[in-house]
């Protein structure tokens, strides 16, 4: 320990180097902190939006009242909670002129909703936030605007719900709360205490009973754990247990994308920080090797050298990480100030404890693990090299050198699994990344070989640059690798963002549905088309629907086929149930809006009845996974007593963001035309002025047709998606900046390490211009090719990640890589010329002395 002071002195007297090193390290780590601040802010803000959808954190629903015992077990599991009770029923409600209409009655108590608000419109068109308490102290209702005409009612008049009359108090301008029941009828809010007056809840009634909870103390991940534990505790099959994230399928999907994406972003940031750290530490350690020789010649034992050196690394790492954390804290108010107006969410002011831990781990343990391969080789150091002035290469590597990389990689792997909260994401990322690293190293090696055999050019500086690159293969490869991997990481996020954005992209408003129309009979199709023509709207994706029962798959009775895994969770029980169910079939020649074939081929056209082939079937991908169908399977259906066989020829993917009606199973045309069928269709977004009259007209002429207003749902989801796209874009930019910070620190460090070369060239009398362009060539060539290969590998890696993690189509984003390569070259050139011109001003003897 006494000797450690010499290692400290080494840092002190080498102030310039130490400061440069620590600053670069903390820059790299600081980008990680910044990313994490934004990540948690976005996460928090989108989750809050999702909470607004439910109006709460967590819910229990059933078609029966939730029992006290069930509520009690929630209270036991989390004492700190707020609870609200809600009942949803469908009923025919009559207006003053006894016009009646089916409505969804949502009976709420005064504490609903915990998140978001219900915006109301008064008689005087004034918009205000409704206080749900008012509903619980008076027999009043808030109604959806379409009921004004449907029930022929005005604010201040009464409507009859069941056996009781209610005063219409206000019109609902907007509300967010999704419930467990479907939105097939306009909504009416009433106060919970008045439900019994309606006498609608009695024997033979069907209603959704819901208890919603707010858990102020539970984080999002704790909420998921909480849900799991409640699912284990409350086993009644009638009970639906959900968090705000899975109340709506759409928002659940968006949040899943978000989680996975942000997980990836954090791993990318982690790896970026690790690359920066690895580069700096390794360069530093290489510099130290000579000193080890001196220590050895003075009789210091190897063990002591390793111990002290490790201690010194730990110290450097800790200072770097503590500085990074400090920077992070100092940076937050600035970030908040500058982003306040452009961000649709508030920045979290604190850094998550997990991030703090990660940074310390990365800075301290990471730095030691990075040094490990070099440390294993200290045995091989031949201090006798001190006698000769020939070579700087103190190190000959044996197998242990490579083995010693493994702990570092395992460390990184564990951290990435921890950071992304996903075993799969973390593992896949780590392995793809390692593969990329190996490929880049090999490419770099070949690249240098190629440079060596290249005919010499006329430009002196270029010649020098090429020669030096290939003469210092190790140094060149390590820069090549760092820059290549850095570019890979910083471009990976934009690439994946492009894929997710594509998945989440919604069609133009004109293509988004505002109504679903279903149960259209064949003979009603023409009248419906006529109505829509009168209103100048187009029916979208009108599809026939044939009800059928799946009898056999490959001649095996379908209902008796076993599901693959036996662990019967609630979800799987439902799947088992769905095996007994009938399916809605459709037929169509081409793909519908938002559909793509991801396996197999397209339909061959209309079915040829005289041929020997079976009719062709297309199956939706998720459905095929759930039920266990694959291409080539022969399915037999019973359609109202007639059996029809067909063969699966392709798997389809449906983009749900189109919100179009879709079918799991589709036949080619020419098979189902004769079967009894109905049609369904969707109506694109309508001008609010004609929306109601269109609906009225359809109901008048086609009384049996059901028309569902989905515009509110679509609007809500659209908002979340817009928010999400912004978040993706923003995170991508931050990631790019963070990546550049790391690349900057690498380039900067590298340029500054070459001062002796500059001095030497200067003392030999080369013109400044030649020296400068020699360095520019050298770094320009390296960064350009490393950048190109990094980006190329990024395409491959993002392809796999999109397919495997996001199950989405891979979308090539060419703009970001092009921009980033340009920027990379510019930045590295700028740093190089600044550094060289700085050194050029200093007298060479000083630089040479410094190096001794």
């Amino acid at each position, binding site marked *: 320990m006494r000797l450690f002071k010499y290692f400290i002195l080494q840092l002190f007297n080498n102030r310039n180097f130490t400061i440069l090193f620590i600053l670069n390290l903390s820059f790299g780590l600081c980008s990680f902190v910044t990313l994490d601040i934004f990540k948690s802010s976005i996460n928090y803000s989108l989750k809050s939006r999702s909470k607004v959808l439910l109006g709460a954190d967590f819910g229990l629903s*059933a*078609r*029966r009242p939730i029992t006290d015992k069930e509520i009690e077990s929630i209270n036991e599991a989390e004492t700190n909670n707020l609870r609200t009770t809600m009942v949803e*029923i*469908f*009923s*025919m*409600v*009559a207006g003053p002129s006894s016009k*009646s*209409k*089916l409505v969804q009655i949502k009976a709420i108590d005064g504490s609903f909703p915990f998140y978001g608000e219900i915006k109301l419109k008064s008689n005087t068109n004034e918009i205000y936030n409704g206080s749900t308490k008012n509903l619980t102290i008076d027999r009043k209702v808030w109604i959806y605007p379409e009921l004004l005409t449907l029930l022929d009612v005005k604010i201040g008049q009464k409507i009859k719900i*069941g*056996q009781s009359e209610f005063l219409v108090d206000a019109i609902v301008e907007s509300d967010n709360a999704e419930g467990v029941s479907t939105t*097939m*009828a306009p909504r009416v809010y009433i106060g919970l205490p008045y439900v019994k007056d309606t006498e*609608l*809840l*009695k*024997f*033979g*009634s*069907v*209603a959704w009973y819901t208890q919603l909870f707010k858990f102020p103390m539970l984080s999002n991940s704790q909420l998921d754990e909480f849900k799991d534990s409640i699912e284990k505790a409350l086993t009644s*099959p*009638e009970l639906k247990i959900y968090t705000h994230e899975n109340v709506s399928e759409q928002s659940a999907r968006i949040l899943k994308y978000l989680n996975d994406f942000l997980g990836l972003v954090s791993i990318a940031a982690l790896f970026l920080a690790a690359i920066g750290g690895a580069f700096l530490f390794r360069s530093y350690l290489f510099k130290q090797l000579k000193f080890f020789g001196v220590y050895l010649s003075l009789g210091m034992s190897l063990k002591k050298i390793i111990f002290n050196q490790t201690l010194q690394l730990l110290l450097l790492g800790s200072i770097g990480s503590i500085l990074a954390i400090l920077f992070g804290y100092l940076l937050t108010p600035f970030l908040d100030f500058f982003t306040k107006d452009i961000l649709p969410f508030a920045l979290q002011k604190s850094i998550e404890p997990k991030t703090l831990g990660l940074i310390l781990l990365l800075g301290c343990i990471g730095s030691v693990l990075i040094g490990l391969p070099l440390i294993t080789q200290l045995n091989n150091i031949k201090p006798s090299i001190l006698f000769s002035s020939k070579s700087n290469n103190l190190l000959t590597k044996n197998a242990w050198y490579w083995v010693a990389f493994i702990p570092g990689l395992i460390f990184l792997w564990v951290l990435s699994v921890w950071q992304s909260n996903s075993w799969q994401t973390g593992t896949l990322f780590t392995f793809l990344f390692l593969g990329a690293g190996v490929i880049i190293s090999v490419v770099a090696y070949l690249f240098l070989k190629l440079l060596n055999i290249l005919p010499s050019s006329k430009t002196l500086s270029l010649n020098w640059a090429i020669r030096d690159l290939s003469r210092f293969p190790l140094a060149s490869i390590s820069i090549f690798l760092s820059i290549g991997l850095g570019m890979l990481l910083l471009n990976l996020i934009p690439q994946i963002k492009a894929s997710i954005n594509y998945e989440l992209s919604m069609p133009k408003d004109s293509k988004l549905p505002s109504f679903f129309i279903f*149960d259209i*009979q*064949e*003979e*009603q199709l023409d009248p419906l088309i006529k109505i829509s023509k009168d209103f100048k709207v187009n029916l979208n994706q009108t599809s026939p629907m044939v*009800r059928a*029962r799946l009898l056999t798959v490959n001649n095996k009775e379908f*209902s008796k086929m076993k599901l693959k895994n036996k662990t019967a969770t609630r979800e799987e029980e439902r799947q088992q*149930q769905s095996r*007994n*169910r*009938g399916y*809605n079939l459709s037929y169509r020649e081409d793909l519908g809006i938002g559909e793509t074939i991801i396996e197999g081929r397209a339909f061959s056209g209309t079915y040829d009845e005289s041929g020997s082939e079976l009719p062709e079937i297309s199956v939706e991908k998720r459905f095929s996974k759930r039920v266990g169908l694959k291409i080539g399977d022969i399915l037999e259906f*019973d359609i*109202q*007593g007639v059996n029809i066989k067909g063969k699966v020829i392709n798997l389809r993917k449906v983009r749900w963001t189109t919100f179009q009606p879709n079918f799991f199973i589709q036949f080619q045309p020419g098979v189902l035309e*004769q*079967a*009894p069928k*109905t049609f369904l269709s969707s109506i694109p977004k309508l001008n609010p002025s004609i929306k109601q009259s269109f609906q009225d007209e359809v*109901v008048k002429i086609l*009384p*049996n*047709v*059901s028309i569902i207003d989905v515009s509110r749902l679509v609007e809500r989801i659209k908002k979340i998606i817009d928010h999400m796209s912004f978040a993706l874009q923003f995170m991508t930019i931050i990631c790019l900046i963070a990546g550049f910070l790391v690349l900057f620190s690498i380039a900067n460090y590298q340029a500054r390490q070459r001062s002796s070369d500059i001095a030497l060239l200067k003392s030999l009398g080369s013109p400044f211009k030649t020296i400068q362009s020699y360095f520019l060539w050298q770094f320009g060539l390296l960064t350009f090719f490393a950048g190109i290969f990094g980006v190329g590998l990024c395409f491959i890696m993002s392809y796999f990640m999109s397919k495997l993690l996001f199950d989405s189509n891979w979308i090539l984003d060419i703009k970001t890589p092009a921009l980033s390569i340009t920027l990379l070259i510019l930045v590295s050139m700028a740093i190089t010329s600044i550094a060289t011109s700085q050194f050029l001003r200093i007298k060479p003897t000083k630089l040479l002395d410094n190096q001794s």
Partner: protein
Amino acid sequence: MFIKFISLLLFFTINTFCFADNKPHKIIFLGDSLTEGYGVSFDESFPRLIENKLKTKFKDLTIVNAGSSGSTSASAVKRVKWLIKSKPTILFIALGANDGLRGLNLKQTEKNLQDAISLATSNNIKVILAGVRLPSNYGVKFRKQFEDIYINLAKNNSLTFIPYLLKDVAGIKELNQSDRIHPNKEGHKVIFKTVLPYIEKLL
């Protein structure tokens, strides 16, 4: 023990003393999810239970389950047109629940069903009409109007009429799935018992 003995004896008696009926019978069950057996396996749906019960007694008996989840009365005529091609002898109609649940115009429902019944009877098909009722929350008035459709149709067409398909099933927790709308396996057994006598009477 005693009950088992009695039932064995009865079984024996029926088989020995009744000659099997060799006339061709084809019964089609036209309906919605209740008939299709939504949420239960095909073999547990009440039309299948009836088929299993009757096929020992009637050698040439075919039963077709033409239940179609989500279907409304509007599809009735079209489907009957398709179904009479296979020459049924008896048509069992249990449609309209979805009309009521969706709050559709009940006059239209009545008309749709009437058209289907007329088409069947004009083709010399015996029709059994099963009455359907709505959950209590739909309101007294609307439920009454809905119930009356079936009573009127049965009376006007002099049909074999089952007043309430879900008799002793609706509203009872043990006999329904967790959605409290669709009968479970046990519920279908009860429906089977409700429907069976009417079928047997017509055969």
